[in-house]
């Protein structure tokens, strides 16, 4: 029987925000749960993130912003993925996102927002439940 492919996750830091502790910790944590994780490093444009996601054919794109630029960057990434026929990739976000912005982001195609204090166990569970079917 063919061995099940690992869930592949891209963790990305869009924009100039340098706070990467969460992104790195999440990368380590999801890897510990058996996922394949690629971390982009800081200062990525939406285009760079989408290129990496397509190139690596990931199942999940996790975006982390603590600087308030989420309303610009998150929808931009979602739209670019859709334009490139990758609308089925699961897009999730985290960082300092004011509660009132969460419905706006969800409406624009971000599936879930995980704020400070979220356990990585819970993010992993969410991914496994919501990720596209892996061929």
């Amino acid at each position, binding site marked *: 029987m063919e061995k099940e492919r690992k869930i592949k996750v891209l963790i990305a830091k869009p924009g100039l925000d340098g706070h990467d502790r969460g992104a*790195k910790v999440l990368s*380590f944590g999801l890897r510990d749960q058996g996922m394949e994780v690629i971390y982009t*490093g*800081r200062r990525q444009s939406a285009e760079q993130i989408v290129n990496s996601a397509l190139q690596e054919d990931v199942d999940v794109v996790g975006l982390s912003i603590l600087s308030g*630029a989420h309303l610009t960057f998150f929808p931009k990434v979602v739209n670019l993925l859709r334009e490139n026929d990758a609308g089925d990739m699961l897009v999730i976000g985290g960082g300092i996102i*004011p*509660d009132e912005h969460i419905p706006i982001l969800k409406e624009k195609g971000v599936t879930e927002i995980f704020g400070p204090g979220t356990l990585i166990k819970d993010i992993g569970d969410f991914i496994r439940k919501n990720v596209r079917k892996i061929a």
Partner: protein
Amino acid sequence: MDNKDKLAEIKEKKEEWEEKALLPAAKRFGIEKRPTEFHTPLDIPDFDFLRDVGFPGQYPLTAASYPVNLVPRLEKGAKPGGLRRAGTYSGYGTPEDTRDYYRLMAKLMYTGGPNLALDLPTQCGYDSDNEIVEGEIGKVGVAVDTLRDFEVIFEAFTGNLDLDKIATNMTINAPANILVAMYVALAEKRGISLAKLKGTPQNDILKEFISRGTYIFPPRPSMRMFRDSLVFFTESLPAMNINGFGGAHIREGGATREQELAFTMANGIAYLQEGINAGLNIDAFAPRFSFVGFGGSMEFFKEIAFHRASRRMWAKILKERFGAKKSESMRIRSQYTAYSGISTTTKQRALNNLTRSVIGAVAGVLSGGPPLAFPPYDEPLGLGWSLEARQLAEDATRILMYETGMCDVLDPLAGSYYVESLTNEIEEAAWKELEKVEGIGGSVAAIENGYMQRSIAKSAAERQSRIEKREDIIVGVNCFTEEYELDVTTSKMVEHPYSEEKRYDAEKKQKANLAEVKRTRNNREVTRLLGELERAAKKDDENLMPLFVNLAREYATLQEQCDVLRGVFGEWQMDSFV
């Protein structure tokens, strides 16, 4: 009986106590794996007060940086008007927005100089009209592109708040020299002597590479920029602090206490060495180093000991390694000592953050500084503190200052068997880690090969793993989260002075501001000076500060100057250490 015999007796009695009292009790309460600690003279057998602690403000500065606690005294019967903590980190949207904000704050008695928060494009050397920074202009701080923007911001600071009467702090690192040059040009335009300018640019580029992330150039040319400011400040801006460096960012990035202390000391050594290499006397510039912040955690006694250890370590480095003679050179100059940290705040049941910050503030007093209940409890809820949260934090600080009597005494834990031994332990571990960094070749080399970045990422992951396994407890996050717990909130009754509408308009407005500057300035002169900058940047021994001042006067933009330097110095790319 001499000391040795006394210690032997204590040891004997201690063993007896452990066997007959401690163990049975620990068993009874089910805590034999980790029984409560009790400390005795055995933990500090060689304790020597003058060598290990000394008097406040004197070598080795363990007790405190100053002979007195820097808490403003209230005269008996006096009305304490104006005793607000001025200079809260702030900056919003356009320079106009920020000017208006500071004017409003002055009415609320926040009357000191500004502590400018700059937006990320400014911190990373980009102009507001650059399309790659769309969405980030005026967020997390004010946008500054040219001298024009400083002229507008500082319209809020005139008369008895003019530049010779206030201290201006700027959280700016990679392009610090360019922003300081704008400040200098502004002072010149106002006819204010440079000798009277006070303030602190953060100017701590090394920790940007390690944790905070707003770097532009690679480490080595970045240190050349630092040297330029050190030399220029020493010669021309004698009342300005050269930097406000420290380890808080490194800790927030995930470092353990010992890593933070070691890396900050390593960074400090690298900065000091730049002054020595430039031919300056250590006592001519070291007193103008300042510390923006250190530490930050909920581990109360360890944070207290950490501050005592860090003061002693810095003093030793200055005296023994750099041969400093003045005690001003050896002290950690900081507005506050211990506090609870930023990343200890929780979004869950956020009012608990007030409790956390008060505990940090008590640690601050007990570690030889003024209390600081910080940050305001709503730190993790969004961007910008509510005025209610600020009021609560400030009142908490005042209660500690004026109701408890805690600030009447300095370093009250000096001589405590536990705290002295903890202080020794933390310092020893930090020296060991510092030796490792020095073995690699010091901070710059340890950043270039990623050692420091990897170390703190690893520590952050370990902390997270302990949280997930509930080995480290966070109330309301990984423990005590059952349905019957209440989420207590306050109602927001005072509007934040910076409105959502302004936030949405800021980007467009600032682009228009910049376009107007570019249309009306002498573009030919700007181009000529940029050419001069390029030539000078290629010569390592040339100090670029005077050129930055000339460029500021002609309204050259931040990015125009940074782009020239990017061409000469290159850009720092290395980043991901996962």
